[in-house]
């Protein structure tokens, strides 16, 4: 009966209850969303680089280097010359290295020139190596291996021909039309930016730019595929390199040596340290966002309380009837609390649905533009903590209208002053 009373009473006031429910839904979704995004973003970033000891690029800030080399966010300020890279690979402490050459794209997905060392040494998540879902690594110059999402979203199969575009925009007007690539392999999904990358060899990057200058094709100097293949395709420069060392102990020594490299201004970073710096930078923003969303939630809860308090006046008759029929004042207290609980739990459920729905819609664009892989499952341990906290807070605030109902019940008796 108590439940029926609470349910039907809410339904009877559905106009205001709907508004309260809506504002609670939005604020809870905001709070859970921000919490979800920050943990997922961290996971996504952290799982992207694993096992790489140093990342080497042209002289720049360590965050900038980390973001463009690994996460494909932003662009490189300068390149590393091929000579410097060669000297780096010959360093006695260097066990392996993966060259990275960026700057082209295919229908919004970034193209990365690299060597087969990439398939051998690149690790993500818990030191997992890359796996080919279909096909094989690239061997020829005009061959490409696609990330899982590129293949899935664009519907590419092995053997298909694709054309790369110059620059990294989704829509590019300068395309390398004359030199199409054949899809020879498709990688298994990794949940990292690898899924959104079109992989080609360093020679391929060199090859499609041979007849270009200053970012545009040179008029009257078009080279055919055969002519290109006849040329020396050794790259002149690369964007960055991921390096694995023989001994982790040497990391700081090698880092210092690279940073002090005389022939060219270079920067070497430790991915873990750079990530830590990123978190530190983001933590203030993160906490601020969280604080704002907690405030929004608080405002919504206070709004609910205000609505309930205002409704106590029109419900005086209802309360008096319950009281005359034999309800203890406590019963009325519990009734109000139950109503709050119903609204809050309902709002929480719709908030989770709203959040999952929006994540489902935004997942691809977040992954495409920020390299962030956000999971759809918003329910985890911290969500339960938040939920418990929200309910507790709601019940706590509901004490005010509930006590008002309780005291009015005691003071008014059977009479109702209308």
């Amino acid at each position: 009966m108590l439940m029926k009373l609470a349910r039907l009473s809410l339904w009877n006031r559905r106009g205001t209850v709907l508004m309260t429910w809506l504002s609670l839904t939005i604020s809870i979704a905001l709070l859970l969303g921000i919490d979800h995004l920050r943990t997922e973003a961290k996971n996504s970033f952290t799982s992207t680089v694993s096992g790489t000891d140093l990342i080497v690029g042209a002289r720049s800030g360590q965050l900038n280097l980390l973001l463009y080399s690994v996460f494909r966010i932003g662009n490189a300020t300068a390149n590393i010359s091929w000579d410097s890279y060669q000297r780096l690979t010959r360093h006695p402490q260097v066990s392996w290295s993966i060259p990275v050459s960026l700057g082209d794209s295919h229908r919004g997905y970034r193209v990365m020139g690299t060597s087969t060392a990439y398939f051998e040494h690149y690790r993500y998540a818990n030191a997992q190596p890359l796996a080919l879902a279909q096909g094989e690594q690239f061997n020829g110059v005009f061959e490409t291996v696609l990330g899982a999402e590129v293949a899935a979203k664009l519907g590419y199969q092995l053997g298909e021909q694709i054309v790369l575009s110059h620059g990294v925009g989704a829509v590019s007007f300068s395309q390398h039309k004359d030199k199409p690539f054949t899809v020879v392999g498709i990688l298994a999904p990794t949940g990292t930016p690898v899924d959104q990358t079109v992989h080609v060899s360093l020679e391929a990057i060199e090859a499609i730019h041979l007849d270009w200058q200053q970012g545009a094709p040179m008029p009257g100097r078009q080279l055919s595929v055969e002519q290109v293949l006849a040329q020396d395709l050794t790259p002149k420069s690369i964007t960055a390199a991921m390096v694995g060392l023989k001994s982790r102990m040497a990391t700081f020594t090698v880092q210092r040596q690279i940073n002090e490299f005389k022939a060219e201004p270079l920067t070497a970073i430790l991915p873990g340290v750079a990530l830590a710096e990123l978190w530190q930078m983001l933590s203030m923003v993160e906490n601020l966002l969280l604080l704002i969303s907690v405030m929004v939630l608080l405002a919504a809860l206070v709004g609910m309380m205000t609505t309930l308090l205002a409704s106590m006046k029109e419900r005086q008759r209802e309360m008096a009837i319950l009281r005359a029929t034999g309800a203890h004042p406590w019963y009325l207290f519990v009734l109000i609390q139950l109503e709050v609980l119903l609204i809050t739990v309902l709002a929480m459920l719709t908030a989770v649905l709203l959040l999952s729905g929006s994540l489902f819609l935004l997942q691809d664009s977040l992954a495409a533009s920020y390299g962030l892989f956000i999971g759809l499952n918003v329910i985890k341990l911290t969500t339960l903590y938040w939920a418990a906290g929200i309910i507790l807070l709601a019940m706590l605030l509901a004490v005010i209208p509930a006590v008002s109902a309780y005291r009015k019940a005691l003071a008014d008796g059977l009479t109702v002053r209308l």
Partner: protein
Amino acid sequence: MTVEQPVTDKPKIPAIELKQLRFFYQPDSWQLYLPELRLDTGEHLFVRGASGSGKTTLLNLLSGIARPVSGELYINGQPLHQLSSSKRDTLRAQQIGVVFQQLNLIPYLSVLDNTLLSAHFAGKPKADSLARARELLSRLGLPETLQQSRASALSVGQQQRVAIARALLPKPTLLIADEPTSALDSDNRDAFMRVMLAEADANGCTVIFVSHDQSLLQYFHRQLDMQKLAEGVQPC
């Protein structure tokens, strides 16, 4: 529980007994003072008084919502003036039925649910109450088809009859009615009085009926005139 047995010629416990009952909100404001009142089970009392004469306060006292400042008040031998607020609530739920002037029902509940409320608060099992509620409602002229509709869909006369059904459902010993006919026209009023008193008699229920309408006096065994308690009751 020891109950002081009044020395009377009848050995049975009276439905209501009050002695030297005094109530006030503040010592210097008006007071309600009733030197003595005794009502046997099944008796119907008509309490007459204009507004401000303290009849609502009397009803609050009798139903256990307010507590007398001094004096003694027994309902079925239970010393209401000594019971805690929560015990008085339980007593009200189980032994006292209340009918208001109007707007007796919770508008969003069905007629049947409104009726069942009293049994719910009295802690009676729902299965037993359901059959009795249906029967009571039918006897009061509210057929099954009406019992499922929302209370707000009924006419005032019908609503007042639902209120009687609700008040009588947990088999109370005392039925308190606070001007229940004031919103009814004369035909409805007479029908209501007959039905209410008949049902009260059928349930062996003592009735305290408050009204300023002198013409209703004909239905009652006894009357209490609030105005005549001039020395005790001072209008505010």
